[in-house]
């Protein structure tokens, strides 16, 4: 009982220790700052509430997160769907794989000006930017995951005459899920970056838009508070992701642990 509490405390210390040190350092270093560009952390935090929690939460934060959500889910669906198709067919894989590598190598932000031409400057464009960048790690990892599904498991599914649907869900998607999740994790950080960048180019609301507005109007404490908010959103989403991952891949982590400890 006490040991588990002590262990939890230790974990908390490990997780929160470094951030606490950094925040304190920032706080102390800027405490008496009169530098216009580096306002005291205290000032920044004081502006945080009024800036974000009153009004901008619904006009900027929610729209940003909504676009992020739609774009990310679309990338996930498209990427894993296409990945399963490509991974299942040898000829399809041979034909499209070099092209995929090419597209993956293009830094997604350069697509923004092009996509503005095609899709305008509305929500559609921003979602498209997110999808166009986040899809690649999911797609390529899914292809790899489907390809690496154990031959014996495939034979088993064939012998017991699994229906196509069951084959897809129970054999292929579950079998490739470790790789799909690895791709999804990379895609999440890409999606967040692209959410901000797409709003910096041409937008009338959103987190990226607001931060740029603050910068242009020299509202530096507010700008800094926006950056802190972005960081917090990133941490929160990554924690959420880990929660989902631990559920979806419980079997995988369990298997890996037994293999490492045993044999």
């Amino acid at each position, binding site marked *: 009982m006490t040991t588990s509490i002590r262990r939890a405390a230790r974990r908390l210390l490990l997780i929160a220790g470094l951030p606490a040190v950094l925040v304190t350092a920032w706080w102390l270093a800027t405490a008496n700052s009169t530098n216009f560009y580096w306002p005291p952390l205290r000032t920044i935090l004081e502006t945080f509430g009024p800036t974000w929690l009153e009004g901008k939460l619904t006009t900027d934060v929610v729209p940003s997160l909504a676009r992020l959500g739609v774009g990310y889910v679309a990338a996930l669906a498209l990427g894993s769907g296409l990945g399963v198709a490509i991974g299942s067919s040898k000829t399809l894989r041979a034909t499209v794989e070099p092209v995929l590598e090419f597209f993956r190598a293009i830094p997604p932000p350069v697509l923004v000006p092009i996509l503005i031409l095609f899709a305008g400057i509305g929500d559609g464009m921003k979602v498209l930017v997110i999808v166009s960048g986040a899809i690649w790690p999911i797609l390529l990892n899914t292809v790899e995951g489907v390809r690496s599904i154990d031959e014996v498991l495939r034979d088993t599914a064939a012998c*017991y005459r699994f229906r196509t649907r069951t084959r897809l869900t129970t054999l292929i998607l579950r079998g490739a899920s470790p790789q799909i999740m690895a791709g999804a994790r990379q895609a999440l950080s890409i999606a967040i970056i692209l959410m901000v960048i797409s709003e910096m180019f041409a937008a009338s609301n959103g987190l990226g838009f607001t931060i740029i507005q603050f910068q242009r109007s020299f509202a530096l404490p507010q700008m800094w508070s926006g950056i802190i908010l972005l960081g917090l959103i990133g941490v929160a989403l990554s924690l959420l992701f880990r929660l989902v991952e631990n559920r979806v891949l419980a079997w995988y982590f369990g298997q890996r642990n037994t293999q490492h400890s045993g044999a």
Partner: protein
Amino acid sequence: MSIVSTLTRRTPEPDTAMSTDSTGQQTPMLDVRGLRKVYTSANRSVEAVRDLTFSIDPGELVCLVGPSGCGKTTLLRCISGLLETTSDEVVLEGKRVSGPPEGMAVVFQEYGRSLFPWLTVWQNVELPLKEKGLCRAERKRLTTESLAAVGLADFHSAHPWQLSGGMQQRVAIARAVAYEPNVLLMDEPFAAVDAQTRGELEDLVRALWERLGVTVLFVTHDIDEAVYLGQRVVVLSSSPTVVLEDVTIDLPAERDQLTTRSLPRFTELRAHVYARVQEAKAGAQSVATP
């Protein structure tokens, strides 16, 4: 608690004549005629199986014995419709095999890899029954009974990777048995388990076969195991593979690790099969089919 106490055995008396395909006999459960398999890749081709002909009657337990690499797995994969043959006839219950047929279950050599690691033991056994379209109550009954029959009643919610190799093999067997196949193919199922577990599992297979009346083709490289288990032992040559001899095992039906293995007849039969395999190795070319 018998799994299929309701099912009657369909085993005919083992005919003492070797399988000469005489007309007038009942139609065999499985008929392999002139099976040949050549693996072709870009730069070479391997003739894994040259010419195999044998047949198995309904309810028989036949062991197929041959040295490692002689094409046993290849043969099983052809029979189960997982692999295209180069030239053949594999006829199961009167129908030519072209894809995985209904009513067949396979226990693979790599049993650990044949279980879905993301499913529990229970789900692994139940899933094929779902695919077969059985109702929930029926699935529950079959899964419970077959897991109990292999001694895994307490491991329903475990995942395969939490079990030892021998237990994983039991899950694979339970899954095959619950499926209620007409034909059960087993590919060196006990090659990788320790000797004691192996003995237990051999007896388990005999017991299940006797209870279910299922036709079993049991593949092994172990001559002892083949003689102990089978009603007949089909001896294969090394690659390119042909049938060397079809030996009828006239041991009493009631088999027991201790007594059966110490019978003089057991020793004789084992020596006979062993000699055939050695002969084949020595004069690999001069192949005399009995």
